[in-house]
């Protein structure tokens, strides 16, 4: 019986605790710090790049409402401030604003801090002339290859996976590569510093053997100037930002967009083909032009 009473007592104490944390319907306040980016003309809203607000949200840029517009008088963009974020049932606002300094202009690094992206650093999209990172891939023979292995040649690469069921997606990419390669091989007067590379984003299923068998269907007897490889997850994560590539595993399949890229002989982005509307003829002529770019490498 003693135990029973003890149990009851414990339970009631716990219930009391639960009530005091769960039952609180009023506002919550969070101390915060950040830099003012913009203040609305009516002084009712301020855009602030704030640091992580512990227990509430990560570093990001956000619009905050002001209930008392006097709070922001004397404060201007680029001021560093401390403030209190108040979160109510249906609204949130900031108050208790104090200017603590002036933000120092920092040199922009290669990473874009996209406002609002919950503090996520996003790799910038590469533009023409930007150097592609030297991705390391697993080639069809099982060996490792670097994209830089093809320096000195114009390189066209695209992404696919062998189980891709949609004819106008991955198979079309490889069919286009097959035809563009045929055009370039047939042109006796064209320079010969060029290469095609098909990259699978399904490294688990697309083992070197699977890739080799698949490749041979597209290449026929002649494997020259067209390699197949698979990309490990770290390469895919990087390419997602840099090349705007999207791949999502869903069951046995992948949902993805299509990205085909031509690099010049120095490994710089020469041209990007999005989607599936480009033709083998276009690719062949872009390759011819890319080959003419200064190689920068003694041949």
């Amino acid at each position, binding site marked *: *019986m003693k*135990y*029973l009473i003890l*149990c*009851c007592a414990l*339970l009631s104490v*716990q*219930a009391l605790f*639960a*009530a005091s944390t*769960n*039952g609180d319907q009023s506002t919550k306040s969070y101390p915060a710090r950040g830099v003012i980016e913009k203040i609305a003309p009516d002084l009712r809203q301020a855009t602030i790049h704030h640091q992580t607000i512990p227990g*509430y*949200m990560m570093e*990001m840029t*956000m*619009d905050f409402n002001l209930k008392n517009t006097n709070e922001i008088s004397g404060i201007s963009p680029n001021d560093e401030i401390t403030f209190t974020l108040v*979160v109510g049932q*249906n*609204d*949130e606002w900031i108050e208790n604003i104090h200017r603590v300094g002036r933000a120092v202009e920092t040199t922009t690094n290669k990473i*874009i801090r*996209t*406002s*609002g*992206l*919950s503090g*996520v650093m*996003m*790799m910038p*999209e590469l533009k023409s002339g930007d150097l592609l990172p030297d991705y390391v891939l697993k080639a069809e023979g099982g060996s490792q290859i670097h994209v830089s292995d093809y320096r000195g040649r114009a390189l066209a690469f695209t992404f696919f996976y062998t189980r891709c069921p*949609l004819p106008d*997606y991955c198979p079309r990419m490889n069919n286009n590569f097959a035809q563009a390669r045929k055009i370039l091989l047939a042109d006796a007067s064209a320079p010969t510093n060029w290469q095609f590379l098909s990259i699978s*984003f399904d490294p688990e299923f697309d083992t070197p053997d699977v890739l080799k068998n698949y490749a041979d269907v597209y290449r026929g007897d002649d494997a020259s100037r067209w390699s197949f490889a698979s990309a490990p*997850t770290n390469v*895919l*994560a990087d*390419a*997602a*930002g840099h090349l*705007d*590539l*999207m*791949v*999502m*595993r*869903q*069951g046995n*399949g*992948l*949902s*993805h*967009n*299509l990205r085909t890229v031509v690099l010049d002989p120095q490994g710089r982005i020469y041209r990007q083909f*999005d*989607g599936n509307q480009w033709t083998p003829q276009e690719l062949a002529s872009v390759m011819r032009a890319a080959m003419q770019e200064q190689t920068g490498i003694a041949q």
Partner: protein
Amino acid sequence: MSSKAGSKQRKGRNEERLFATVAIVGSLVFGAGFSWLLFAMNSRDETQIAPAAANSKAAVIAPDHPRQLVNFSLTDRTGRAVTQSELAGKFLVVDFMFTSCSLTCPAVTGQMAQIQQLTTNQPDVELVSLTVDPRDDTPAVLEKYGERFGADTNRWLFLTGDRTDLYNLIGTSFLASDTNNEFGFMPGNFAHTERIAVVDAHGHLRGYFDGLNQNAAADVADEIAKLRNSNP
């Protein structure tokens, strides 16, 4: 002597049994009461959240933190500029898609199409599809995709634009990010792009529904009706 000892033992055992019974019954009663208390308090806190009962309803998923529709300027599939101001005062049903997504997106867009039907006579409801692949999803591409699902240009916006602007809107107002996802790679690392979000007339994100759940459309419509009644 032996019988005396036996009866003592029996008596002791009976006491033990009684104590055990009382203890078990007691803790059951208190356990049930305590669970109910917790449940009651939880459901008071999250009044809009359906209990995880054994029905097929798609439960509302609460936002990870308060989120609000931020200012934006994007382009819809007709090429028209759209800002948040034209959505003010409306219930918004928002999903995240890209037209080259062959597996899950069509299912989610299918739910959106059903929501459009279920809310036909509700002018205070607007549907918004945000592409996560603006480089591919130009207005023309989105127009074709929208037509495939019978999207009404006046009630269902498909928005595209600058990647940074779009991702700012999605990341701030709607989706958390997940940088450690080994099964998905996209520029903004958004988590749960299969969700359908419901925004109230004040621009507050009220919750998400799993867009892959077959009942999502009906549940979104119910949720909006509930919000409309509780917040006229």
